[in-house]
């Protein structure tokens, strides 16, 4: 199981872009990490992978996988130390595959790293079957540009599975795909999560997708976690005004109001984040205590917590 504790990611000597983020992912569980673009969710995931770009670094906290500290290890170091793996699929299946190598070679390469004794090509075919790519034997010799977007994302999933991951990180894997293909890929991720008993960190800006797919949700804003909860309680009774604001922005087919709600103002940029609660300047419930000092952790339904002075649906004694 993956446990992230007080993770801080910063830009060189500059501002922190991920601050004190903590969460856990259990095997067979999908955690949806929701936030606007620039909220730090992608950087959180790259930090978990050990793939932060050279200008960024982890400056605090820890990432534990099955009781092994993997915080500062790049993927190849994790292979060398034989600890559990985290694998990742990315937003752009178009550019995430090497254009000059055949699909089969790219999968086999991952197989060889993680299963040195396996018959790489047989295993690659098995993986393509697993991600539901028809005519696997033939597709192995295709180049990425010969496949559709959905097929490419399936290949990416196959590569990730070749690493035999305990946790799969999916960074907006369906944003670049058509709606019908999106559903298929989401279905596949759910299925693999269940059948392989693998944890999934699903990153998205789309609360609708989270509602369909995730077991639990973490809401991120300006580099911090605002609220964590199981899917049901979160949608039924959000604690944090920001979560509630996001939900109000979802289109509601039953409403007659043609104008969709928005949250006033815009998210602060790293380095311009105010003291206290980062959401306070845009929050209609905010008052003096929100603008400085630490924000308390409040609890709602079992497993639900948020950082807010004036939560919406607090349940006393929870």
């Amino acid at each position: 199981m993956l446990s992230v504790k007080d993770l801080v990611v910063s830009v060189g000597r500059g501002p922190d872009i991920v601050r004190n983020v903590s969460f856990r992912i259990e095997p067979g569980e999908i955690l949806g990490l929701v936030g606007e673009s620039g909220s730090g969710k992608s950087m959180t995931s790259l930090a978990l992978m050990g793939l932060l770009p050279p200008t960024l670094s982890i400056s605090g906290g820890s990432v534990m996988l099955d009781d092994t500290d993997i915080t500062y290890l790049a993927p190849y170091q994790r292979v060398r130390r034989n600890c559990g793996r985290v694998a990742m699929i990315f937003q752009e299946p178009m550019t995430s595959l090497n254009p000059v190598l055949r699909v089969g070679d790219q999968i086999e390469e991952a197989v060889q790293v993680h299963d040195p004794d396996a018959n790489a090509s047989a295993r690659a075919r098995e993986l393509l079957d697993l991600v539901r790519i028809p005519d696997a034997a033939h597709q192995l010799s295709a180049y990425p540009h010969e496949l559709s977007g959905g097929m490419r994302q399936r290949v990416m999933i196959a590569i990730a599975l070749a690493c035999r991951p305990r946790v799969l990180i999916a960074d907006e894997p369906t944003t670049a795909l058509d709606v019908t293909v999106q559903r298929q890929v989401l279905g596949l991720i759910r299925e693999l999560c269940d059948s392989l008993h693998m944890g999934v960190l699903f990153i998205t800006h789309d609360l609708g997708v989270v509602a369909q797919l995730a077991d639990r949700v973490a809401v991120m804003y300006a580099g911090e976690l605002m609220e964590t909860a199981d899917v049901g309680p979160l949608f039924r009774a959000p604690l944090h005004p920001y979560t509630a604001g996001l939900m109000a922005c979802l289109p509601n087919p039953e409403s007659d109001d043609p104008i969709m709600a928005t949250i006033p103002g815009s998210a602060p940029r790293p380095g311009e984040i105010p003291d206290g609660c980062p959401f306070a300047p845009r929050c209609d419930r905010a008052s003096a205590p929100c603008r400085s000092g630490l924000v308390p952790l409040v609890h709602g339904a079992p497993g639900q917590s948020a950082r807010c002075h004036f939560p919406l649906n607090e349940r006393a004694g929870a």
Partner: protein
Amino acid sequence: MGRYVIRRTGAAIATLIAASIVIFAFIHLIPGDPVYVMLGDGATPDQVAALRDKMGLDEPLVAQYLIWAGNALQGDLGQSIFFETPVTQVILAGAETSILLALITMVWIIAFGVPVGILAAIRQGTMIDQGLSGLAMLLASVPTFWVGLYLILIFAAGLGWLPSSGYPSIFEQGGLANLSYLILPSLALAAPNAALILRLTRASMLDVAREDYVRTARAKGIRPSRVVLRHILRNALLAVVSAFGFTFAALISEAVVTETVFALPGVGRTVVQSIMRRDYPVIQGVILVIVCMFLVINLIVDLSYRLLDPRVELE
């Protein structure tokens, strides 16, 4: 692919035809009657008439071009005024020197520019990178003939290790040892061009390193050295290979100067001497041959680039 080969070859032929018209027009753009210019003012009317006749200058321009181009297609580039031999012979006489010079220079360029460019890219931002990038820019700012003169001063006149000028054919006495005559010239010629290839290699390595698929490769847990070799280098070199055509053109251009510095009996020096001698048919012929070679080499580079890059539709 087949259709691409045809289209690309067609474009090359069209460019060649247009270039040949420019080269043909050249002789008519020279102010004054080319025959008098070539023969000098003391020419007798008989000589003038004979040359006019030989060069077909009394025909209409279009007919002249067609005759000239037709002859060129059959390997007849006309007569040298100075040598009074066919231009093709004059070119062939310099071909060995020039081709060997270009090949040896290409070897230096690839042997130095590519690996050092890779080194600079791998060590991006370090002192090594800054030093190498600075060196590359310095080399690109140095006139080849100046480098050549210093090489002569140090290694030929000073240390006496290598010959300073001339080049006896490898088919004559001395055999392959005669290649030592080409070492200093090829080094001088390689300097600025190796610098360009170094910069290009470094830049395209860094470009590719930023690609998403390199991140995918790292995510797989592959060793960093293998990520560089298999995923970055391979894709980066595609861009470098496509620059070889232009490097070759630059080589030919600068060989004109280098061959003059080292008194090499090559085609480039022939051009310079023919300009002094007003031997226009030779100038025309050499330029036509060089343009032809340039187009063929670029065609080959382009087509092989397409073969190496599977993204192109293989019809």
